[in-house]
């Protein structure tokens, strides 16, 4: 932790970066994002099992991008990112949203995070995405902090099991998702936290023509959630922030995970794996499966 603070401070002092995006502690079992431009403020930075947010989402915010821009040109931004968050960076680089050379990636040797703020870090409370995680560090990091420790074995119980839902007959599955999506209040928190939802104007906000019913009516809710899943297929890196942000506790990542599984199964593609890969959408191979055509 001290090492990170020292390192970040140096970066700011030497003006190597315009800002550091990181986590600060608020209370015992909770952190929040912080954007630091003053070197002395770097003492606020922390790295622990409560660093839940995917800070990559901030890299594409106009206000933060503006920090990096000056008369002289573009300066770097430093971001604290867990190895899984770095996958979002990779995806954003593939989609021309950020440039690797404008970025300083400060990562950690990760041993998992809690499923939610406030709970104790142990096998029972391990975040779902950490259960079968095998990337405890990332080759894309400029520097990784913290010691290497094992991820605790998951001993809790998942609320929704994707494989169980897959087994349901179509009508039951429909019923399940209708019930879930009916809860949606169209607050778009899922969209706001998603690092890959960077459109300047989301399709749901378009009115001429109106693609998606905007009141939180069941029909529009369904449309929104399906559009979200489809627009993220082959792109979602599985950070799970949408689900964590949803105030109505809709298991949003189920569809995303299903689409990711399909991408891998049909095209051998995993989003956020390598900046050298052509993106799944937009690349074509004669051997591509056509199973998705209806």
């Amino acid at each position, binding site marked *: 932790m001290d090492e990170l603070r020292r390192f970040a401070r140096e970066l700011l002092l030497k003006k190597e970066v315009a800002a550091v995006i990181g986590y600060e502690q608020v209370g015992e079992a909770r952190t929040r994002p912080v954007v630091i431009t003053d070197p002395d403020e770097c003492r606020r930075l922390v790295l622990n099992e409560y660093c839940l947010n995917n800070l990559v989402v901030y890299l594409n915010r106009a206000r933060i991008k503006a920090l990096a*821009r000056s008369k002289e040109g573009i300066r770097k931004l430093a971001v604290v990112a867990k190895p899984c968050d770095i996958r979002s960076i990779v995806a954003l680089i593939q*989609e021309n*949203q950020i440039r690797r050379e404008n970025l300083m990636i400060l990562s950690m040797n990760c041993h998992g995070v809690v499923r939610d703020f406030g709970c104790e870090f142990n096998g029972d409370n391990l975040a779902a995405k950490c259960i079968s995680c095998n990337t405890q560090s990332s080759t894309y990091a400029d520097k990784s902090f913290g010691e290497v420790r094992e991820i605790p074995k998951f001993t809790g119980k998942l609320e929704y099991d994707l494989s169980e839902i897959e087994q349901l007959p179509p009508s039951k599955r429909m019923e399940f998702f209708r019930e879930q999506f009916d809860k949606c209040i169209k607050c778009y928190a899922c969209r706001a936290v998603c690092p890959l939802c960077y*459109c*300047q104007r989301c*399709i749901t906000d*378009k009115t001429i*023509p109106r693609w998606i019913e905007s009141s939180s009516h069941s029909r529009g809710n369904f449309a929104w959630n399906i559009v979200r899943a489809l627009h993220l297929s082959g792109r979602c890196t599985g950070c799970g922030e949408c689900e964590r942000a949803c105030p109505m506790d809709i298991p949003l990542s189920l569809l995303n995970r299903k689409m990711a599984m399909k991408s891998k199964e049909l095209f051998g593609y995993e989003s956020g794996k390598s900046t050298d890969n052509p993106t799944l959408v*937009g*690349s074509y191979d004669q051997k591509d499966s056509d199973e998705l055509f209806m």
Partner: protein
Amino acid sequence: MKIGVFICHCGENISRTVDCPRVAETCEKIPGVEFSIDYKYMCSDPGQKLIKDAVEIHKLDAIVVGSCSPNMHERTFRSAAVAAGINPFLVEIANLREHCSWVHEDVESATQKAIELVRMAVEKVKRDKPLSKIKVPVTKRVLVIGGGIAGIQAALDVANAGYDVVLVEKEPSIGGHMSQLSETFPTLDCSQCILTPRMVEVNQHPRIKLLTYSEVEKIEGFIGNFKATIRKKARHINEDICSGCGQCVSKCPIKKKAFSSFEEGLAYRPAVYIPFPQAVPNIPVIDESVCTYYRNGKCGMCVKACDRQAIDFDQKDTMMVADVGAVIVATGYKLYSIGKQPLGSKYKGYGEYGYGKYKDVIDGLQFERIASASGPTSGEIKRPSDGKEPKKIVFIQCVGSRDPAKGISYCSKICCMYTAKQAMLFRHKVHDGEAYVFYMDIRAGGKMYEEFVRRAIEEDHVNYIRGRVSRIYEENGKYIVKGEDTIAGVPVNIDADMVVLASAMIPHDNAPGLAQKVGIPYDKYGFYNESHPKLKPVESTTAGVFLAGACNAPRDIPESVAMASAAASKAIILFSSDSLEREPVVARVNEDLCAGCFYCRKVCPFGAVEVRDIKDMNGVVYKEVAYINQGVCQGCGTCTATCLSKSIELAGFNNEEIFAEIAAL
């Protein structure tokens, strides 16, 4: 907005299943429709006049025509609209024929559907915006691919009309198959004698840039504005200083390692070679695969022989780019290789005829070389096996052709003629020789062609036997040809000294590969498709790409030349104005909304999407957005569908218009 609806009966094509008067009546009640009428032939002159008059009388702003496919008559009705003073893009066609009357039987439901189709078109036309045509410049230069007689003719015609030509030939010399032929039917004039003056003319023409030993790597762009990338393969000879003296060729110690493909494998050639004496350009090529220098770095006899230091072992392939406005593809054919089909070939081969096994069973091109004054036997008819003069030759027609069981169902069209020619040549050269021809039918349609075959039979006493050959085998130094005379109904056995197989003309192995680079379709054999079999025989379906010669189908020389001149004139017509008018149906990016993910750029099949920098007031780029080159965009709409934030609109088919159509259903 006042809309006019015009419902066409298309004779009975539509009115048979659609109650046209009822459609017209019902549609008059759609809000916005001022006038509605049905008529027997809307595309006819009176029909168009009806539209024009209605526009004037009812002060219409837009029109909907319920008729055949827009593919047929959209242009007609748009012109009628223009004549009446309406923007052509305020015309919508509801396809009541292909989409309705032709595919339904029940009058009631077809009529209902027709009404719905018109209603959709009305809702769309309400939102249509007037558009004006886009002008794109034309590069007045032609790329000709293939330097056989077809490519040569096309290049000369275009160049003589005053336009630049880039002629790309993959072999070291131009000339194609015609340069290998002995004499040509139906006049028996010497092939080389009529061809070489044209080859020389190509080489000397100030408007023709000749690139031999070169291949097209890719072609981008569109009619009037293609960009071709060409690979110039390393000859290992500096073309600028080589004088073509041939010293290197005669000094090369590799004499018997490589067969000459020009001589169809009947002779050897050195590692450094000029394919044939009249080659254009007269510059050798070093074949790396057999040259000793490339094997062990030694030898270099040619370097010593060359007093101009033109040998360049280190020469590498070079790439060049040519901007052209039109492309003429003239890549010709090859012969079906009888008996020795490569593994995985879709053709079966003729193992039973012993080609490849018996040295004196040869194909038509090999016979051309043997009969050719410049060939390996200096024009004397000698068998490849022992150099003896054959006294009895059997010619077999339709080898490969017209034989679906062996993979080809078409007639190669030229073999009847060249077989007659070859049998005749043999009889002229070997007076006591006997020639036999096995044929299925004789196809000699063409000016002086039938007469030519009759001459072979009647004057030169060539024996024509109608029937197929089942097998050829060797016995006591003779080739026993076992066949059947189907007219007499008896089996025939001929003990021949030599057998010539008239094998089928097929496309080059790489024909589909080139088609994909150029972007033109081909048939199941690999022949390039013409746009219309009757009315557009030299146009490919890709605008600005034309076809000439045997790459399109089996063709003889006169046909190849005629096609070449036709293709050349098509290109010249294209160049007759300085710019082309293009439909304004192109995509446009909303730069404010574009997030710059460039998925559109990845999916655009025409490479129309460019990157545009958006700068802040200090001139620092803060955003990159997509920009669509209006000249390159073909309006396919792929980008529009891909854009996640729907920041691209296709003019004439924008989201609002399409939504309105769907909502009207």
